[in-house]
C-alpha cells in the first residue's frame, strides 16, 4: 500500500482516478464524494449533495467533470473546477451501483438495482436508452473502450454484453431531437437501440463485476461463487457456427449464407451451437447445442434457395445429447437418460430406438447406418441395423471424430491427443501434443492434417508426424485438397492456406514403398535437408538417404548402415583416413567381403590383422609374403607369428637365431628335427645348450586349413531397389558393376536360403487341415439342431381350414404403362414402343401412306426392345419390367405417366446425317445411300417435343430425299457404260438436287467434266458457271474457268433432255425431268415427285409409301394434335 487515506467514518463505495492528474475520487457511504491528490496525500475537495451512500463515481476523460450515482436514485454530474453539481439525472428506481462516462460520446452509463442499465446523454440531459433484461440487481455496467458495446454484471448470475451500435448511429445522425420525443417510448418499452448480444452464463452466484479487456476481445468477471472467469467474446467453441448457416463451396471457394440460425430467446455464449451434421443429398443440417440441457435443430435447406436468405424454413427441434446423420435421411439422437439412440427421419419422427452398448456421452457418424459412440474412456462403433458392436477402442476424452474420405480410417481428437484407428477401430497410432489439438481433416492420400493452437501438423498412417506450418492464430481445418488447406479462423471466416506438402507426401511414398514416387521426388527434389536424411536413417531407409547426401562422411556412415559396402569403399577412398578404413574393414569382415577387408587393412597398414585374415582365409603364400614384410620392417614378433602361422619351423629357428635368441632357436630346431641347424647352433652355444624336455612327443604346430579359402563368404545380396537402378546410374556405374559381380558368384547360395524358408512355410501349412476338421464338427452340430426342430411339427393340432383362400379377392390388375402410352397417343413410334405394331402400322399408313413396312421392322423391334428396363426384385422371383418414360425431371410427379422414351431421337438423326454427308464427300455412294435411307426409314417413328422441331424433321426428310434421289441417279449412271448421253443427263439431274455446297461443287465438277468431254460445250459452260457461283476451291475454280474459256460461245454437240433454263423436278423412278407445268404425282411421305403413271407404285426413293396414296401428313409430335 502506497498511501492510506483517512476518511472520518465511512466506508468507501466508489473510486475513480483522474485520467491525467494525480487525483482520485472516493465516494463514501455517508454520501460525500472526496477528491484527493494521491501524491501529496491531501484532500482537495469534497462534494456533498447526495442523500445516502454514493456507490458510483467517474471522472470524465477530457473535461473537468465527474459523475456520481447514489442510493438516492440520482445521478449527478459535477464540475470540479467550479465545485458545483451541474445537474441531476433522475429515472432510476433504485440504488445506483455504477456510473461511467463514454470516452467519446456525451453518454453516461449507469447500473442500478432496479434491474436496468441506462444510458444518458449529459448534454441533452436525458436518458437515451434503458437496457432491460437482467432480472436482479445490476452490479456494474461499462462501455467498451472502442466498440459500441456495454458489458454488465448482475446478481442474476449472468454477464451480459449489449450492442449499442444502433444508438450510436442515431446519435451521430442529426435527428437527435427525435430521441427526446421517443424517450417516453423507450422508457416504457425498453430500449430498441441497445440489444443484448451475448448472455454469459456460467457463474453459480451473483456476478459483482465485469469488465472488457482494453484491447483483446475478452471479458473478465468476478462473482460470489468465488470465481473469476475470462470470457472470449468472439469465439464460440466452434467458430464456424456463427449466427448464420453458410455453405462454402470448396471448388469455387464461394460462400453462400443459407439461413440464420434461430437462437432461443437471448443469445448465450455457452449455448452456442456445438456441432453440425450435414446430409448433402437431402440438403439437411443438424445443429446441436446445449440449450435446454442438450437439443438439436434440424434445418432442411431448399436446394434452389442458395443465396436466398429470405426463404427460411422453420427448424425442427428436439431434445437430445447429440444428433448426427447416420444415413441420407436418417439421423440418430442420443438420449442420455436412457442411454439409447432414437433414429429419426427428416420429418423428425422416431423410426427406431436402439439401446447403446456403452454409457455414451456423444455420438458421431461412422458410415451409413453406424454410429460412433463416445464414452468417457473409450469409443465404440455400433451398427444400428444389426445392433452389433463393430469395434471398440480405449481412448479417453475424445472431442472430435474425423473420417477419411474413403471411410477407412478415423481420427479421434481429444484435448491433447490424436488417435488414428481403422474403420473397425483397430488402433493405428497415437500422437500426443502438449498443447491443444484444435481440428483436423484427411487429405486424399490418407494423411491426417491437424491443427493445434499454434501449428498445422501432419500424421502419416504409421504414426509419424511433423509440423507443416506454424500459426499465429489458431485455425480450424475443414478440408484438405492437395496443397490447399481450407480452414476457418476464430471469427468463422473461411481461409485458404497453401502449404508445401512435399515432405509428408515424400514420407508417405516411402512408407507405401512407392519408390517410383520417391524417385521422382528426389530427382526433382527440393526437399534435401538434414531433417529428411535423419528421418530416412531413423526409419530404416539409409539406402534412400544415401542418395541425397553429398558429404562423404555422411555418405560413408549411411553406406555402412545400409550395408552398401561398395559405396562405403568409394567414400572411404575419398575420405582416406584410418578410422574410416578401420570401420570399413569391420563392416566388410562382418559381411565376409574378404577382398574389401584386405583392402581396408592394407590401406591402414594393419599387418597383424591382415596376416590373420590371410591365415583364416587360407592365403598361405600371402602370409609368407607378410612374413617377409615383417622381416623387412624389423618386426620380429610379427615375423615370428607369421612363421608360426605358416608352420615353418625352419623359418622360426632362423628368426630366433637372427634375433640373437640362440637357445630358443636351438630348441626350436632340435624339437622339429632340424638336426643340421641344431648342431650348428649347439656348436655356437657351446656349453649353454639347453636341455630338451624328456619323454614328450613332438608335433609341428600347423594351423588348421580353413574350410573355405581364398574367397568371400557367402554374401547376402544387398537390397538393390529402384534406387540403385535409378540413382546410381547417374554417375556411379563403376560401383554398380562390382556389386553385380559379387552377387553373381553367390546366386546359388541365395536360392538355398529361400528353399529353407519355403520348407518352414510348408510345415506351417500342415496345421490347417486340422482346423478344417474342427469346423466340420461344428457343422454337424448345426445339423442336429434341425432334426430337433422337425419333431414337434407333425403334432401341431390341425387348424380349421385354410381360410385365406376363400375370403381373399385379389384386386384387378391395373393398366400397364405401355397401354397408357397407346391410349394417349397417335404417334406411330410410341405405339411401336408399346409393342402395338398393328396400330403403329395403321397410323403410318394413314398419316404417310406407308404400305411397305419391311424396312421398318428393325426399328419397330428396337423401339419395343428399348421400351422397358429390368429390375430384379426378390432374387428368385420373376424380374419386373418397367416402362422407360421420357422427360423426367426432379419435380415430375409420381404416378403420372409420361410418354415412352424412344430409342430413336432427332438428335441421333442429325448425327447420322453428318455421317452420311461424310460418306458422300468421300465418294462412298452405296454406303452414303444406305445411311440416308436409314434416316428416311427411322424418321416416321421419331417423336419430337416442339413444333419447331416438327419443321426441322420435315426439313430433314426433304434434305435426305434429295440425296437419296441424287445418289440413286449417280449409282445408276455408273451402271450405264455406253449411253453417254444418258450419263450426262443423270449427272445433270444430280446437279438439280438440293445438296450441301461441298457436294454440289463435286457434282457440278463431275457434270461439267462429263459434258465437256462429250463436247456439250454450252451445258459444260453452264455447269462451270454454276460451279464458280458455289465458292469452289482453287483447283475447281481454275478448271471451271478453263472450261468457260474453252466453251465460250460454242454449242452442244449432242442434245440432252436437260433444259436448265426451264425449272424442273426429277422423277424419282424414271429419272426424267418433269418441267414446270407438266403433271406429276408425289410420295405422301418423302415428297419425291414422279411422272403420273407411277401412281400406286411403291416410292422408289423412300421405299415405304405408295406414290399418290392418300395421307394426312407427318405426325411426329404431340404438339401437333393439341
Amino acid at each position, binding site marked *: 500500500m502506497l498511501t492510506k487515506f483517512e476518511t472520518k467514518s465511512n466506508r468507501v463505495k466508489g473510486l475513480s482516478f483522474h485520467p491525467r492528474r494525480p487525483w482520485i475520487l472516493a465516494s463514501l457511504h455517508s454520501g460525500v464524494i472526496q477528491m484527493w491528490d494521491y501524491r501529496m496525500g491531501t484532500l482537495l475537495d469534497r462534494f456533498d449533495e447526495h442523500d445516502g451512500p454514493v456507490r458510483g463515481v467517474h471522472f470524465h476523460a477530457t473535461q473537468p467533470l465527474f459523475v456520481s450515482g447514489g442510493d438516492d436514485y440520482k445521478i449527478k454530474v459535477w464540475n470540479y473546477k467550479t465545485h458545483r453539481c451541474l445537474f441531476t439525472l433522475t429515472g432510476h428506481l433504485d440504488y445506483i451501483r455504477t456510473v461511467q462516462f463514454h470516452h467519446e460520446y456525451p453518454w453516461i452509463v449507469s447500473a442500478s438495482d432496479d434491474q436496468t442499465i441506462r444510458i444518458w446523454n449529459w448534454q441533452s440531459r436525458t436518458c437515451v436508452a434503458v437496457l432491460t433484461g437482467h432480472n436482479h440487481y445490476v452490479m456494474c455496467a461499462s462501455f467498451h473502450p472502442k466498440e459500441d458495446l456495454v458489458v454488465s454484471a448482475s446478481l442474476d448470475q449472468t454477464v451480459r454484453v449489449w450492442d449499442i451500435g444502433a444508438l450510436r448511429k442515431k446519435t451521430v445522425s442529426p435527428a437527435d431531437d427525435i430521441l427526446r420525443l421517443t424517450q417516453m417510448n423507450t422508457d416504457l418499452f425498453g430500449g430498441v437501440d441497445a440489444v443484448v448480444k451475448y448472455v454469459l452464463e456460467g457463474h453459480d452466484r451473483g456476478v459483482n463485476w465485469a469488465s472488457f479487456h482494453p484491447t483483446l476481445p475478452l471479458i473478465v468477471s468476478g462473482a460470489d461463487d468465488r470465481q473469476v472467469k475470462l470470457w472470449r467474446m468472439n469465439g464460440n467453441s466452434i467458430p464456424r457456427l456463427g449466427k448464420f448457416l453458410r455453405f462454402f463451396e470448396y471448388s469455387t471457394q464461394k460462400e453462400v449464407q443459407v439461413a440464420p440460425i434461430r437462437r432461443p430467446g437471448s443469445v448465450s455464449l455457452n449455448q452456442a451451437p456445438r456441432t453440425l451434421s450435414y446430409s448433402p443429398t437431402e440438403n439437411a443440417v443438424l445443429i446441436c447445442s446445449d440449450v435446454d440441457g442438450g437439443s438439436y435443430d434440424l434445418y432442411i435447406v431448399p436446394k434452389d434457395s442458395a443465396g436466398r436468405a429470405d426463404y427460411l424454413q422453420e427448424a425442427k427441434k428436439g431434445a437430445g445429447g447429440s444428433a448426427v446423420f447416420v444415413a441420407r435421411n436418417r439421423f440418430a439422437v442420443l438420449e442420455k437418460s436412457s442411454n439409447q439412440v432414437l433414429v429419426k427421419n427428416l420429418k423428425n419422427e422416431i423410426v427406431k430406438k436402439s439401446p447403446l452398448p456403452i454409457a455414451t456421452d456423444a455420438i458421431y457418424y461412422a458410415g451409413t447406418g453406424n454410429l460412433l459412440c463416445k464414452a468417457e474412456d473409450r469409443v465404440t462403433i455400433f451398427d444400428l441395423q444389426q445392433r452389433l458392436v463393430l469395434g471398440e477402442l480405449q481412448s479417453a476424452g475424445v472431442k472430435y471424430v474425423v473420417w477419411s474420405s474413403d471411410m477407412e480410417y478415423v481420427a479421434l481428437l481429444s484435448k491433447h491427443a490424436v488417435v488414428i484407428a481403422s474403420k473397425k477401430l483397430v488402433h493405428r497410432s497415437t500422437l500426443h501434443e502438449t498443447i491443444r489439438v484444435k481440428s483436423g481433416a484427411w487429405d486424399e492420400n490418407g494423411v491426417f492434417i491437424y491443427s493445434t493452437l499454434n501449428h498445422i501438423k501432419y500424421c502419416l498412417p504409421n504414426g509419424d508426424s511433423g509440423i507443416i506450418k506454424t500459426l499465429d492464430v489458431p485455425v480450424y481445418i475443414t478440408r484438405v485438397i492437395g496443397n490447399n488447406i481450407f480452414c476457418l479462423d476464430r471469427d468463422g471466416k473461411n481461409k485458404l492456406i497453401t502449404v508445401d506438402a512435399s515432405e509428408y507426401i515424400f514420407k508417405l511414398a516411402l512408407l507405401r514403398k512407392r519408390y517410383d514416387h520417391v524417385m521422382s521426388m528426389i530427382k526433382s527434389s527440393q526437399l534435401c535437408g538434414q531433417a529428411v536424411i535423419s528421418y530416412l536413417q531413423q526409419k530404416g531407409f539409409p539406402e534412400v538417404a544415401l542418395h541425397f547426401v553429398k558429404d562423404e562422411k555422411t555418405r560413408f556412415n549411411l553406406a555402412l548402415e545400409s550395408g552398401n559396402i561398395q559405396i562405403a569403399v568409394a567414400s572411404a577412398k575419398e575420405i582416406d583416413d584410418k578410422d574410416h578404413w578401420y570401420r570399413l574393414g569391420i563392416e566388410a569382415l562382418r559381411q565376409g567381403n574378404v577382398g574389401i577387408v584386405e583392402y581396408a587393412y592394407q590401406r591402414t597398414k594393419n599387418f597383424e590383422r591382415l596376416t590373420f585374415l590371410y591365415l583364416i582365409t587360407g592365403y598361405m603364400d600371402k602370409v609368407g609374403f607378410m612374413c617377409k614384410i615383417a622381416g623387412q620392417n624389423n618386426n620380429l614378433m610379427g615375423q615370428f607369428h607369421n612363421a608360426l602361422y605358416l608352420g615353418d619351423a625352419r623359418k622360426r629357428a632362423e628368426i630366433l637365431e637372427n634375433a640373437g635368441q640362440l637357445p630358443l632357436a636351438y630348441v626350436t630346431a632340435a624339437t622339429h628335427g632340424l638336426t643340421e641347424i641344431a648342431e650348428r647352433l649347439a656348436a655356437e652355444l657351446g656349453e649353454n645348450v639347453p636341455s630338451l624336455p624328456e619323454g614328450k612327443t613332438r608335433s609341428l604346430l600347423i594351423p588348421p586349413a580353413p574350410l573355405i579359402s581364398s574367397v568371400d563368404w557367402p554374401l547376402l545380396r544387398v537390397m538393390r531397389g529402384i534406387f540403385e537402378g535409378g540413382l546410381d546410374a547417374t554417375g556411379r556405374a563403376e560401383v554398380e558393376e562390382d556389386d553385380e559381380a559379387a552377387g553373381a558368384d553367390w546366386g546359388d547360395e541365395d536360392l538355398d536360403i529361400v528353399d529353407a524358408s519355403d520348407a518352414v512355410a510348408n510345415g506351417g501349412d500342415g496345421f490347417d487341415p486340422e482346423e478344417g476338421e474342427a469346423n466340420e464338427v461344428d457343422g454337424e452340430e448345426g445339423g442336429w439342431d434341425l432334426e430337433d426342430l422337425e419333431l414337434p411339427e407333425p403334432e401341431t393340432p390341425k387348424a380349421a381350414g385354410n381360410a385365406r383362400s376363400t375370403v381373399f379377392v385379389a384386386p384387378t390388375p391395373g393398366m400397364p404403362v405401355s397401354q397408357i402410352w397407346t391410349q394417349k397417343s397417335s404417334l406411330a413410334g410410341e405405339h411401336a414402343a408399346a409393342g402395338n405394331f398393328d396400330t403403329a402400322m395403321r397410323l403410318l399408313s394413314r398419316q404417310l401412306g406407308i404400305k411397305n413396312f419391311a424396312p421398318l421392322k428393325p426399328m419397330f423391334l428396337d423401339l419395343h426392345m428399348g421400351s422397358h428396363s429390368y429390375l430384379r426384385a426378390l*432374387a428368385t422371383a420373376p424380374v419386373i419390367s418397367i416402362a422407360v*418414360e421420357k422427360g423426367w425431371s426432379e419435380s415430375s410427379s409420381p404416378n403420372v405417366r409420361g410418354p415412352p422414351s424412344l430409342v430413336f431421337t432427332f438428335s441421333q438423326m442429325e448425327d447420322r446425317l453428318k455421317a452420311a454427308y461424310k460418306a458422300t464427300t468421300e465418294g462412298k455412294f452405296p454406303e452414303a445411300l444406305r445411311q440416308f435411307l436409314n434416316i428416311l426409314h427411322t424418321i416416321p417413328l421419331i417423336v419430337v417435343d416442339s413444333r419447331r422441331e416438327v419443321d426441322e424433321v420435315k426439313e430433314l426428310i426433304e434434305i435426305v430425299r434429295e440425296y437419296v434421289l441424287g445418289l440413286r441417279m449417280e449409282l445408276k449412271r455408273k451402271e450405264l457404260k455406253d449411253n453417254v448421253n444418258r450419263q450426262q443427263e443423270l449427272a445433270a439431274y444430280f446437279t438439280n438436287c438440293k445438296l450441301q455446297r461441298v457436294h454440289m461443287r463435286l457434282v457440278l465438277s463431275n457434270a461439267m467434266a462429263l459434258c465437256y468431254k462429250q463436247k456439250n460445250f454450252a451445258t459444260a459452260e453452264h455447269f462451270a458457271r454454276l460451279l464458280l457461283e458455289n465458292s469452289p476451291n482453287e483447283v475447281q475454280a481454275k478448271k471451271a474457268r478453263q472450261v468457260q474459256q474453252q466453251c465460250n460461245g460454242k454449242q452442244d454437240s449432242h442434245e440432252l433432255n436437260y433444259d436448265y433454263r426451264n425449272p424442273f423436278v426429277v422423277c424419282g423412278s424414271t429419272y426424267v425431268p418433269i418441267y414446270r407445268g407438266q403433271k406429276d404425282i408425289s410420295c405422301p411421305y418423302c415428297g419425291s415427285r414422279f411422272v403420273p403413271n407411277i401412281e400406286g407404285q411403291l416410292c422408289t426413293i423412300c421405299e415405304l409409301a405408295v406414290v399418290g396414296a392418300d395421307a394426312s401428313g407427318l405426325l411426329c409430335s404431340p404438339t401437333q394434335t393439341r
Partner: protein
Amino acid sequence: ADAAAERDVIVFRSYIALGSYQQLVISEIDSSAATSLQAVKLLALYLTGDKEGAIASLKEWLSDSAIGSNPVLRLIAGIIFMHEQDYNEALKHTHTGGTLDLHALNVQIFLKMHRSDYADKQLKIMQQTDEDHTLTQLANAWLDIAVGGSKIREAYLIFQDFAEKYPMTGMVLNGKAVCCMHMGSFEEAETLLLEALNKDAKDPETLANLIVCNLHLGKPSSRYFSQLKLSHPDHVLVKTTTSAEGNFERALQAVA
C-alpha cells in the same frame, strides 16, 4: 432352433438364387427336413423344370391345414405362381403377409399387376415393422421406380445408400442403372452396367439393361443380346423380342 431353420432357409434360397438347384438344394434337403426347407426344395424343383410336379405338391401342401400357413411355404407359393403369372393364386397365399419377405413379395406382385396403390399399402406395413430393414428399403426402391417421377431420385438414393454400406453388387448397380435410365442419364447407366458386367458377365438383368441402354445411346447392342439369348433364353427381354417378331409379321398381315 428357429433361428437355425430360418438361417437354412435363407442359405438354401441363396443357393437357388445362385443357380445351384440340384446339388446344393435338391439333394441336400431330404424328406425329413422341416416344412420350410421342403418348400424351398419345391422352388428348386420348379426352377429346374419340374413345374407340374412342383405345383402339384405345392397345392397339396397348401391345402394341408397343418402346414398350409407356413410363411416360407406361402412365400414359395407366391414366387412359383408369380412365375406362372397367376397373380391371383399367388396373392391368395401371400396377401395376409406376416413376414417382411411375404410383404416384399406382395409389393412385387402388385407391381407386376400395375397396382402400385396396393403395393404402397404393403410397403407401409413393412415400414411399420422395420423401416430401415434392407428388404423394406429395397421394396421402397422398387415401388419408387414403378411410380416414377420424382420418386426415381429417391430410389436412386436408396441404392446409393446400399452402395455405400455394402460392397457393390450387380443388383445394386442394376438398381442404380435402372434409375439412371428412367432419369434419362443413359451414359451413367451404361457406366454402372459395364461395372456390373465386370462382376458377372452373364447376369441376365445386366445384359438386358445394357441392351436397352445401348439402344437408347444409339450404340450396337447385338453382342449383349446374343449373350443373353445364349445364357438366358427364357429372359423376358428375349421372349418379348421373339414374340415381337411374330407380332410384326402378324401385324403386317392385318394391315395389308
